[in-house]
């Protein structure tokens, strides 16, 4: 046997190796322990220990406040994000394919992407009133612009030879959009959706906190008003779970739609 390979094998054997899929779990464990410790040692009223928060969460689930509001929130999220996906892709494809549409809309899209979306809350409130409509509209403002920009960029980066290839087979503009541009731009579109979905969750909570009639955001606002830190953090845990689940769903769809991409090209 080659001495150098046996030496390096021995060296590798002495190292403690943690399987990489265990790292997130370990990291989470450290975070949980730290939260619990700090909460106990450092006795401030607005940072209760994790165990207190979890106890409060169980309490909130038991009296039904979480589930009822969670389903209201998820309905808002699904409507707002659904509208954002459809509108974002349609507008993005139009901007990517038609230069005049791009020149006309570009400035607005970038302005609205950078603008703090929450300033739209009072505007929607005055238009749609005290209800779902305002929250859904706010979610759209949070999520749609990044989807538009990514879609338009994805469309513009489609290799020209694929489009010309389709043209040589006499493809119509619509056929080219559907059969060449959309699938070719799909990795970029899905990247936009991944960012869009977490922005949509943010919009949902901000909207619900501001308008405070339905949803998890209302629970947060009410608990905050009572200085009930444990409830605020308990709902925060639920919101994080919602965000995580929503992006997991987008990621699963992404993997299915872009399974043709080589593994190294994944963002």
């Amino acid at each position: 046997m080659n001495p150098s390979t046996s030496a390096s094998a021995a060296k590798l054997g002495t190292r403690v190796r943690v399987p990489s899929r265990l790292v997130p779990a370990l990291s989470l464990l450290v975070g949980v322990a730290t939260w619990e410790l700090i909460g106990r040692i450092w006795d401030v009223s607005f940072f209760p220990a994790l165990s207190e928060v979890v106890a409060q969460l169980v309490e909130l689930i038991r009296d039904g406040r979480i589930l009822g509001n969670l389903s209201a929130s998820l309905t808002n999220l699904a409507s707002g994000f659904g509208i954002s996906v459809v509108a974002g892709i349609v507008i993005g494809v139009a901007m990517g394919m038609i230069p005049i549409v791009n020149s006309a809309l570009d400035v607005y899209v970038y302005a609205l992407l950078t603008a703090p979306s929450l300033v739209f809350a009072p505007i929607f409130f005055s238009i749609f009133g005290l209800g779902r409509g305002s929250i859904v509209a706010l979610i759209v403002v949070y999520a749609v612009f990044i989807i538009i920009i990514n879609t338009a960029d994805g469309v513009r980066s489609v290799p020209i030879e694929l489009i010309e290839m389709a043209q040589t087979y006499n493809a119509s503009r619509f056929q080219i959009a559907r059969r060449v541009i959309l699938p070719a731009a799909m990795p970029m579109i899905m990247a936009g959706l991944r960012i869009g979905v977490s922005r949509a969750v943010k919009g949902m909570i901000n909207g619900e906190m501001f308008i405070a009639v339905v949803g998890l955001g209302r629970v947060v606002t009410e608990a905050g008003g009572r200085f009930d830190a444990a409830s605020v953090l308990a709902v925060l845990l639920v919101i994080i779970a919602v965000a995580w689940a929503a992006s997991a769903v987008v990621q699963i769809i992404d993997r299915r739609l872009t399974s043709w991409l080589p593994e190294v090209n994944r963002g």
Partner: protein
Amino acid sequence: MIEVKGLTKKFIDKNGTTVEAVADLDLTVQDNEFVTVLGPSGCGKTTLLRCIAGLTRWDQGEILIDGNPVRGPGLDRAMVFQSFALLPWATVLRNITFGLELRGADRETREDKAMELIGAVGLADFEHNLPGTLSGGMQQRVGLARALAVEPSVLLMDEPFGALDEQTRRLLQEELLRIWEARRITVVFITHSIEEAVILGDRVVVMTPRPGRIDDITNVPLGRPRANPAEYAAATRTVAELTATLWERLKQHQPDSRAGGTRS
């Protein structure tokens, strides 16, 4: 029959100056003829092909296919690209049926046609592979099958084997000849390789550098079939002589050539 009459195509380059890519070019290609086009880089040979394909508009002149003026891409022509231009998300089968699908052919017709061609181009058992899992030579077989699937009367090939290594290139040349000898369609084949131009073509067209014009058209005195090199083994000398003659001709147009002696 392809008739190119007085074709002139101008570009505006980055500095805003007008460049003539092709100037007053005439070329006639007979039905079922295999014409290869040679020329220095940037001589407008690809422009010529793109004009025939209907992908590029031109400034003056006309192009007729069987007497009908070219106004854009058409069902009578299909193109094979140097970069293969395959859809990376679609299987070999779906790439090959792409043109037929756009024309609304039903699934059975499409797949029958595709399976026939998959056999003809040597892709059997790869029909469910994605292009990314295939070698360059295999990818270009897909490109060729896709073009043949729509049964064009004119096949336009833009340096189709230019991105392949020598051995793969030779293999594909032989397969192209075998397929063409069985189907006999009109082929316009752009290439950088003098030998390739001679082995494949009935006639070799040499173009001048910008602006592209026809410099010379040479008949290839080799019989058919030629798919198997043994079939023209006796004419090896002819191939070598013709290659040398064409090279002498092309060399005069090489911008960095001193050997030609015709340019200072």
